């Protein structure tokens, strides 16, 4: 009896098991995509080329037809495209016309650390090409080697390549599930209550309606983290999409900013928001500030994330939602690191998800 109990305990504590899935061909026709170079938002030199090759390999195995590198390179050179962190309307149209791909896969590397335990965080999205490009799928993953160490550290991952493979497998499956089976990753919906906004304001006039269209404008980065604003934009885009908003591709928003010559001084003003409403045809504009975005290397440290957002409505020309979220990775952790979050990505994505969910409720 006691042996059985001990076995159950060990089995239960042995960390997260990798569930191998059958990589059978998709049920319908294969989607033809281009995989853009990985955008490095980690702030350090990171192996983005090998990561891109791994993504391409995984996507091919999951039933995607990926445009050859040579053809993509020629397209980027011919059209003088240097920014590959997003796609504007013109690029999407020309890409479809010249290469025939139906969507673009864009990945942004947020964290890469190969110090033991390794850490890795990446956000990716699939944007349709042709007329009216839209975000078809968006997901992110943030993993640390010691997320599930289990008993006697049997579940500890010390090899960064193994961790990256695991993360990319999760991410590419999420993409394939959305595109071919129209399902969402189950873990993405698990939220911990401690990541709710600390302060929130919701105007009585906020009625998002059915699938409201929203543009997330660049967030002001007041954190010490390089690219903290860009990373948080991706987290918020993903959260709003998951909450039911029709999120405008960030490349289109960037292009509108350049065309309208908007230079924000301390955040978006009502005049700038009004100009954006018309150009990108949205119901809401979301802006804000990143206050904290701190990851740590190695085994000891605490992840920190903090941001404030404001949602401006097209109909009222006023702020209809405002919130402040502040969390540490060890919030409400009392025993044996139970419930501890080791990457800021894993925490910030939940914090952003709460914001998105509370806006539509």
């Amino acid at each position, binding site marked *: 009896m006691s042996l059985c109990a001990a076995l159950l305990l060990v089995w239960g504590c042995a960390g997260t098991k990798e569930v191998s899935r059958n990589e059978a061909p998709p049920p319908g026709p294969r989607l033809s995509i281009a995989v853009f170079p990985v955008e490095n938002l980690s702030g350090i030199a990171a192996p983005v080329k090998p990561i891109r090759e791994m993504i391409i390999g995984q996507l091919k195995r999951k039933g995607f037809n990926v445009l050859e590198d040579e053809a993509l390179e020629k397209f980027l050179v011919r059209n003088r495209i240097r920014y590959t962190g997003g796609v504007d309307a013109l690029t999407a149209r020309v890409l479809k016309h010249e290469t025939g791909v139906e969507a673009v896969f864009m990945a942004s590397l947020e964290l890469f650390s190969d110090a033991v335990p390794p850490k890795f965080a990446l956000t990716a999205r699939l944007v349709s090409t042709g007329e009216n490009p839209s975000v078809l799928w968006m997901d992110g993953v943030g993993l640390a080697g010691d997320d599930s160490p289990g008993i006697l550290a049997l579940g500890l991952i010390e090899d960064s390549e193994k961790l990256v493979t695991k993360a990319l497998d999760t991410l590419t499956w999420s993409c394939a599930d959305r595109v071919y089976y129209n399902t969402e990753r189950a873990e993405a919906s698990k939220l911990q209550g401690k990541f709710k906004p*600390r*302060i*929130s*304001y919701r105007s009585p006039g906020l009625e998002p309606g059915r699938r409201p269209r929203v543009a997330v404008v660049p967030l002001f980065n*007041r954190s010490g983290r390089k690219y903290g604003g860009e990373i948080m934009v991706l987290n918020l885009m993903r959260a709003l999409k998951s909450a039911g908003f029709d999120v405008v591709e960030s490349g289109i928003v960037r292009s509108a900013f350049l065309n309208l010559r908007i230079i*924000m*001084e*301390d*955040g*978006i*003003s*009502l*005049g*700038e928001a009004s100009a954006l409403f018309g150009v990108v045809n949205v119901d809401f504009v979301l*802006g804000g*500030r990143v*206050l904290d975005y701190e990851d740590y290397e190695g085994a000891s440290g605490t992840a920190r994330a*903090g941001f*404030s957002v*404001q949602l*401006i409505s097209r109909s009222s020309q*006023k*702020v209809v939602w*405002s*919130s*402040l979220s*502040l969390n540490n990775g060890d919030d409400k952790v009392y025993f044996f690191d139970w419930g501890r979050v080791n990457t800021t990505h894993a925490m910030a994505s939940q914090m952003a998800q709460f914001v998105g969910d509370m806006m539509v409720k």
Partner: protein
Amino acid sequence: MKRIFAFTGCVLFLALVFVSGCTTSSRDVYHDEKMDFGAVQNVAVMPLANFTRDSLAADRVRDVFTNKLLSTGALYVVPVGEVAKGIAKAEIAVPTAPSPEEVVKLGSAIKVQAVIIGALREYGEVRSGTAAANVISVNLQMLETQTGRVVWSGSSTKGGITVSDRLFGGGGQPMDYVTEKALNDLIDQLFK
């Protein structure tokens, strides 16, 4: 016997003085009695003057205060981007300490009935011997935009090293918690 009572009384008195000396809250509030605060619907929170070592602290406190004030539902707080545009439009040289004329100009530029200015005097960890704790000290003023005069002024200090911190250690409360407490106190003072 009388001596024992006198000694105990002295000890109690000294302990009371000591404890009150360590109290981390202070209140210096001014309300203009002639001001109709009900007429104020839209306000702008200006950048706070920062007298601390942390260069981003004032921005952080301003953000928390803006959200707190908006979440009360009693006032509409103009977005910070709009305030920045207004500051540029009204050509305010020192946004942390605008003159009454500049306040009037700003009021008409961004259509607000009042402007809130303030200063962050303390923010971060304080140490005394082996004890350490987080402390915040902030003061705010509300200026009405018809004449540019001060109609409300309040200040709050929260956190710091308490008797229990000295005796048992512990490091005090987290900075975010202390900040929220101080700003809640200021909002209470404003609406009183």
